[in-house]
């Protein structure tokens, strides 16, 4: 029963103990963080197994909702919590030389704990708190490199994130004003009568923009290229891969539970389309691998926004499939960019020194573009087929934009690939990839390739996730059993 709580509490607690442990035994300090994440991942996995088809709500401290704080646990939430934990574990910050520094470890643990909290929490206020906690952890991590560029990027990120959080807070206030509660289940109950109006829509706009900052939503994503270009590749991978999806999860929950009105969907669709257009075009022009990948990630997030902007369970399935693929492919690409970062021009002939990495890069690019039989093809196909079914003509534009984006993607990613294979006598061949990065990227790549053979089972699993996630009645009755559907 308390397992899910441990997912949040354990990393947070350890984060605050870590400086002390470092002081006492540096080696133990170094090992504690990953160890705790392994433990929490195992807890998460067992929870996922226990849960089966159920959903459950945990009232913290025994106070029943809507008064008390509650966690809502379904497969989707647990899957995201697990993704955060595993992602942080895989992308654990590098130990920096002889001078032991507990800060990156602590911040990463805070990120993991707060991320789990974000995924699991069942009321809006806690969502906000955990969101801020995630934000604080990432500020620290981004600035952690200490270079001027990193600090500038971090400040920019801080400003826009701060504004975003303020907007979200105003949105929450509006909702509270309209309904008098912040418990999501209770809100879902009240939404049709209280939030289906201008005030509700205004609240959604504020929340969307607020949480959209981390989900790389156009146009509050201007921090993305700078931060991704300056932060360490593991952190970038974590931000692009995992944190952005967490914010997306919140937006999805809000959309499904509180704001089923078509105007809300329309707004998201428009911003999603603009995200794809701006991201892919900017990526096409980018001459620096980190920025290129950053822009492309904006484009991919745009696809997810477009997918979630459609009503119904099939749309959620499609969006989740794209998100899952991006969660695996993008971090791997960013990991490769650790050594290959900087100007694409400078990559001439890099395949000579690191043939495996070059092949991996091709594989990941193909998958990102959506070439069959790679998993992303099936994900994009789901999105497209769902888009083609919609009556609103703007959705057709969405489909066209996604595909034009894929064509651009093929162009710029393979421009990089052809650089890798074209040695230039005038400049030195880049150094070979380092093993830790390559191994991590390789692992993610292997997962992608393996998933080609289990597309249908994955699809079934995601279908169940989407089923649960789209079921508002179930959410309400799980948290508040008095209400019978």
């Amino acid at each position, binding site marked *: 029963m308390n397992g899910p709580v441990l997912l949040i509490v354990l990393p947070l607690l350890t984060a605050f103990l870590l400086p002390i442990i470092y002081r006492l035994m540096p080696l133990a300090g170094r090992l504690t963080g990953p160890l705790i994440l392994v433990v929490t991942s195992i807890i998460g996995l067992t929870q996922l197994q226990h849960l089966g088809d159920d959903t459950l709500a945990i009232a913290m401290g025994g106070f029943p909702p809507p008064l008390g704080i509650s966690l809502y646990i379904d497969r989707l939430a647990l899957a995201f919590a697990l993704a955060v934990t595993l992602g942080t574990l895989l992308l654990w910050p590098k130990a920096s030389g002889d001078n032991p520094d507990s800060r990156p470890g602590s911040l990463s643990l805070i990120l993991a704990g707060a991320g789990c909290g974000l995924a699991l929490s069942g009321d809006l206020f806690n969502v906000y708190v955990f969101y801020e906690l995630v934000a604080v952890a990432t500020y620290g991590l981004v600035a952690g490199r200490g270079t001027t560029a990193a600090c500038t990027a971090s400040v920019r990120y801080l400003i826009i994130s701060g504004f975003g959080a303020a907007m979200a807070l105003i949105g929450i206030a509006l909702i509270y004003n309209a309904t008098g509660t912040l418990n999501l289940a209770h809100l879902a109950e009240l939404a049709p009568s209280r939030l289906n109006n201008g005030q509700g829509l205004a609240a959604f706009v504020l929340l969307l923009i607020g949480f959209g900052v981390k989900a790389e939503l156009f146009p509050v994503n201007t921090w993305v290229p700078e931060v991704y270009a300056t932060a360490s590749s593991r952190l970038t991978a974590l931000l692009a891969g995992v944190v952005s999806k967490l914010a997306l999860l919140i937006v999805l929950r809000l959309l499904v539970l509180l704001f089923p009105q078509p105007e809300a969907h329309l707004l998201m669709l428009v911003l999603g389309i603009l995200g794809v257009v701006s991201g892919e075009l*900017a990526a096409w022009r980018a001459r620096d691998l980190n920025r290129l990948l950053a822009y492309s990630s904006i484009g991919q997030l745009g696809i997810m926004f477009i997918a979630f902007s459609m009503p119904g369970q099939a749309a959620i399935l499609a969006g989740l499939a794209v998100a899952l693929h991006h969660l695996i492919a993008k971090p791997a690409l960013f990991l490769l960019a650790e050594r290959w970062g900087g100007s694409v021009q400078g990559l001439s002939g890099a395949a000579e020194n690191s043939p495996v990495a070059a092949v991996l890069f091709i594989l990941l690019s193909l998958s990102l573009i959506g070439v069959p039989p790679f998993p992303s093809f099936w994900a994009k196909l789901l999105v497209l*087929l769902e888009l083609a079914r919609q009556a609103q003509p703007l959705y057709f534009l969405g489909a066209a934009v996604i595909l034009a984006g894929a064509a651009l993607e093929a162009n710029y990613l393979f421009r990089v690939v052809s650089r890798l294979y074209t040695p230039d006598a005038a400049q030195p061949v880049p150094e070979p990839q380092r093993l830790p990065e390559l191994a991590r990227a390789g692992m993610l790549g292997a997962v992608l390739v393996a998933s080609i053979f289990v597309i249908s089972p994955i*699809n079934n699993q995601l279908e169940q996730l989407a089923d649960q996630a789209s079921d508002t009645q179930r959410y309400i009755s799980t948290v508040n059993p008095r209400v019978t559907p």
Partner: protein
Amino acid sequence: MTPLDLLLLIAAFTVVVMLVSGQLRSIAGENAVALYAAQGLALLPMAGLGYGTVAEVPASISIPIMQHTLHWRFDGLSWFFALITIGAALLSSWFTAGEWAEKFRARGGSMRLFHSTLALNVFSMLLLLASGDLLSLFIGWELVSWASFLMMGLAGGQALRYAMRYLSYAIAGAMAVLVGLAMVYSQTGSFDYAALAAAVPHMSNNQIWLLLLLFTAGFGVKMAMIPLHLWQAKAYAETPGPGAAFLGAISSRMGLFAIIVVVLQLIGFARLLDLSIPFTLLNARDLLAWIAVFTIIFPTFTALRQHDARRLLAWHGIGQGGYMLIGILSMDALGSAGGLMHIFNHATYQAMLFMSVTAVLHRTGTSDLNQLGGLVVRMPLSFLAMLVGIIGLAGLPPMNGFVSKWMIYRSLMDDGSPLLFIGAVIGTLGTILSVYKLIHNTFLGQLRTEHVEIEEAPSSMLIPMMILAAIVFLTGYFPGVVLDWVAAAQAAIGLPPLTHTLGGVPEINGGLDMIWVVSILLAGFGIGALIFFSGNRHQRIHQLDNYAGGHFLSADVRYQYSDNFYPGLMHLIGPWYRASFQWLERGFLSLLETLSTLMQGGYRAAHPAFYLLAVMVLSLAWVVWL
């Protein structure tokens, strides 16, 4: 296990074998030839498809994926295309088995990569040809696109740049197809061919127009239909020789195959005629036919201006695709048979021409038409191959190209489309002029001093060329052999099959019997040769033993120039070359560049919070307005 399973298995096995052993000097080429021969043999149990006795051979494997099922099957059309594909691969890999591979390796190429790429191309093409629903068609399509990208980019450097250009076109095309598929799915709820065919009558004309645009443009990229043709010539020309022979023979025909299956067979000939273009007397079929005619004319005359033999051939490859399309679009038995037969004919002579040019390149190190000449005395058999090839390409008797073009012309005239006919003839005129330039500048005229010591191409190159020459001649002599397969393919796509004889086409008002035509031609030549060789006193002298105006011409005096060929003609038609399509392409690219610079500028803005507030205010204003 069905015969189709066996074929696909062998093709997949070929890829694996080549990946494992493609670098072995002694046996890789021979292995490849043997494996392609095995694939060819695997076609035999399905020969019923080629003769119309069996309608369809299914594959026993079908893959359920999500809510769709992928399945594969062969029909007469697939069998016909598969035969050409495997034949082209067999002879191309034979061509590599020997000196060519040595030289390729010496220049830093990887034969393992070459062989496995070729095998991958064949495998993906067979998958495409076998596709039994729209989804497997799309998957096959994408695989073929990427496999041919690999083949084009193999040589690196410049070739990779052209391959990238191809990729941009191909992926854009594939995405157009995908939009079309999504539209079809939203209408029918399934990817089955039958479902689309059944839904077409219920779709509005606008929907059909949109589908037509998406599918023809998407698939048309691969067959380099105007105005999507710019990538092809350079990309094919830079492909390593045998690879170019293979791609030139069959790769771009995959686009035609997909157009036949989806646009002509599923959307249907009848529906095309129904779609009229407002304010003109044209319908959708006429529009396509005119595109086909311009696809003949523009590239052919562009070929005339090329001075690299490989580019010249590659440009012709584009133009000949137009003949095939226009033939099939005629929709009657004669014209469509001509179009389909032209696919086979073109594959045979185009592969041979590329091989011959590659042989010259192999020996002399250049394919620049201004740097060659007079090689007939050094490389007579390569000359013979090119001669047979260009007669075929120009569509003159006695080679097979004549038969298919005759059928196409005949049906255009019978159809009452004189303008299309004139367009096609203009194209042929350009073809004849430019192939003459090709053979003249390569093999005729003055031998250059640096080429005096050149030897004939090695047997590994000559044998496949001679096999192809024999095929080109014999299928010209007995076109009925090919027409059997063509008739089965016609039946498979719902066209009336052509009634034919071994020698050609019986028609009430003037048919064609190639056995007679060729026999008389040969008899004429024979009599001429008899008179020439018996009655005439002649003496062989060395080419360099030459006089002009009473002066002895030493070997270094150039008395015969090959550059600036056809100056008079170029003076006349030169101003017509405007490079409008390149201008269009550049315009599009700079538009893209501008847009993306704008977008990037947006992300670079120094005041990020401004956007946030702006979008907030705008959205709230929108909410209030609602």
